C-alpha cells in the first residue's frame, strides 16, 4: 500500500515551550480538502507552520510520502508541500509576475533561468486568481486581498501535492472567496492535490471540506467533516451557541 500523502501521529503543538494542543493524529490523502477550525489562539497557524517548516515535534511526528518531515532536504520538500502564510511583508518593490514566478524555483535547476513556458504558466495562474493584467504591477501597491491572491497564484505555480493555506480568505471580498475556494476544489482532482486550509467561516468550511480538524477543545478533533462539524462540538469549542441551517441546497452555520 502506498503511504498517505501526509501522516501525522500524536503531534503536540507548542507555543514556545508551552504545550498548546494535542495529541493530534490524522492522515491526508490526495483529493481531500481539510479545513482547520478553532478559536483565536488555538494553534491553527502554529500547526500549519510546524508542518510546513518541519520544525520542532513535527520533524518526527509527521511524514510526507512516508518519510519523516525532518529527513527531507528542504529543496525536495518544496516540491511536496506549500504554504500561503497569513501575512506577507514585502521590503522591496517587485513586479507581480516576478513574485509569482518564484513559485517555479523548486522545479528549476541552480543555473537555469525562468523561460518562456514558466512565464506563460505564471500568467495563467495569475488569471486563475482573477489578477490577469496585474503582471507588471508593483507588489508594494497591491491591496491586502490582491497580495493574498498573488501568494495563492505563487502556490499554484509551485504546484505542491499538499497545499496549506493559512486563512487565505481573510482579506478577500465575497466573490473572490468563492472563486478561490472553487479553484482549490478544482485542483483536488485535476492536480491530484490535497488542501489543508484554516478558516473562520464555518459555512465556507462546510461548503468545501471533506475533512476537518478542530482545535481549541478539550482534545483536538480530526476526521471526516460529517463527524466533526456537529453543533454540540462547535458550540463547546467556540464557547457560543451555533446551529446549522439548510438553504440553497447547502448547510450554513449561524451564531445565535
Amino acid at each position: 500500500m502506498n503511504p498517505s500523502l501526509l501522516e501525522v501521529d500524536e503531534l503536540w503543538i507548542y507555543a514556545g515551550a508551552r504545550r498548546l494542543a494535542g495529541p493530534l493524529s490524522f492522515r491526508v490523502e490526495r483529493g481531500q480538502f481539510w479545513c482547520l477550525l478553532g478559536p483565536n489562539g488555538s494553534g491553527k497557524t502554529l500547526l500549519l507552520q510546524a508542518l510546513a517548516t518541519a520544525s520542532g515535534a513535527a520533524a518526527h511526528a509527521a511524514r510526507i510520502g512516508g518519510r519523516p518531515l525532518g529527513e527531507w532536504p528542504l529543496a525536495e520538500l518544496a516540491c511536496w508541500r506549500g504554504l500561503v502564510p497569513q501575512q506577507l511583508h514585502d521590503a522591496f518593490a517587485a513586479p507581480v509576475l516576478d513574485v509569482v514566478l518564484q513559485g517555479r524555483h523548486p522545479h528549476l535547476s541552480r543555473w537555469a533561468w525562468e523561460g518562456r513556458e514558466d512565464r506563460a504558466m505564471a500568467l495563467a495562474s495569475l488569471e486563475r486568481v482573477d489578477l490577469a493584467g496585474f503582471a507588471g504591477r508593483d507588489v508594494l501597491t497591491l491591496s491586502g486581498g490582491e497580495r493574498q491572491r498573488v501568494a495563492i497564484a505563487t502556490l499554484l505555480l509551485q504546484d505542491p501535492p499538499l497545499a496549506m493555506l493559512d486563512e487565505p480568505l481573510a482579506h478577500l471580498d465575497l466573490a473572490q472567496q468563492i472563486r478561490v475556494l472553487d479553484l482549490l476544489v478544482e485542483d483536488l482532482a485535476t492536480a491530484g492535490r490535497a488542501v489543508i486550509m484554516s478558516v473562520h467561516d464555518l459555512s465556507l468550511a462546510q461548503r468545501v471540506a471533506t475533512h476537518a480538524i478542530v482545535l481549541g477543545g478539550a482534545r483536538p478533533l480530526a476526521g471526516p467533516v460529517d463527524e466533526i462539524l456537529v453543533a454540540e462540538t462547535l458550540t463547546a469549542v467556540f464557547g457560543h451557541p451555533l446551529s446549522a441551517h439548510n438553504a440553497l441546497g447547502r448547510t450554513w452555520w449561524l451564531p445565535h
Partner: protein
Amino acid sequence: MSVRAIVLPRTHGPARALWLLLGAAFVCTLVFALALACGSNPIPWADLPRLLFAPDASVEADIVHRLRLPRAVAAATTGALLSMAGALMQVLVRNPLADPYVLGLSGGAALGALSAIALGTAAWTVNLGAFVGALVATFAVFGLAGPDLGRVERVSAADPSARLLLTGVMLSALAMAGVSLILSVAPVERLRSMVFWMLGDLSGAVASVPALAAVPLLALLALPFGRELNLLLRGPGPALLLGVDVRRLRLLIYAAASLAAALSVNTAGTIGFVGLVVPHALRLLIGNDQRVLVPASGLAGAAFLLAADTVARTLLAPQQLPVGVVTAMVGAPIFLWLLSRRSVTR
C-alpha cells in the same frame, strides 16, 4: 491616493542580462579611460592606447603607468567591491537602506587603522590594521547575533534581522567611541592623515591581489545563488517554503559581503555612499534580479568611484580631496531624490 500602475523593470532572461552587463562594462571602460586621461597633465584620448600597451620613455607614459593606472585600478576595484557588498547586505538585512558597513564593519576598521596611525607605524600597517579591525568587528557581530541568521521564527512574520542590525550598530558605536578617544589624544600632526583615512582616500592606494580576485568571484557568485537571493529578498519565510536553506545562504552572504568590504577598506579606507547609492539606483533602473544586479553593481560601482576620484583629484588641483567627500556630496543628494521619488510612487 490613487494607485497608479508603474512599470517596473522585469526579469527577462539571460539575453537581456548579458546586454545590460555589456552596456555597463562599456560605460565602465569609458570612465576608466577618462580617469587615465584627466589630471594636471591632460593626455589626449588618441594617445592612450599607445601609452598603455606600448609605453615609451616619455613623461606621459610614466604618468599613466606609475601614477594614474594603479590609482584607477584601485578606485575601480574598491568601487566594485563596495557596491557588490552593499547589494548583498541589502538582501541580507532586507533593507534598501543598508550599506556594506551596516553591521559595524567600518567602526572596527577605523579603530584598527587609527590605532596604527596613532602609533606611527609604517604605512602598510595602517591598511593591515583596518583589515584586521574589520574582520574582528565581523566576527564579533557574528558571534553575538550569528544564531539569528538561521532563525525563521514564523513564516509570515517580518525578519529576525533586527537583532543582527542592532548588534552591528552597537558594536560600531563602541568602536567609534574608541576612535574618538584616539582622535582626542593623538598628536596634532597625525590628525590630518587620520581624518583623510576615515573619509576614504585613494591617493597612493594600490589594489591588492585578493581584492582584485574578489571582484570577479563575487560577481560570479550571483549566478548560481541569484534565484535564492531573490527569494530571500521576499522574506526568509517564503524563501524557506520554496526550498532555500536560509541559514546557509545568509551565512554565505554575510561572509562574502564582509570580506569584500574588508578588502575595500584595506585598499582605501572607509569610503561612504558607494555601497548604498549604487545598488539602490540600479534597482530602480534595471530591476531587482540579483543575477543581474550584483554584477551590474560591480561595474557601476567601479565607474562611479572612478569618476568620483577623478573629480576629487582635479576639482581643486593641485589640492586633492579625499574621495569620500566627493561620493558623499554626489551620493547624498541622489539618495534624497530617490527617497522623495519613492514616496510619490508608493
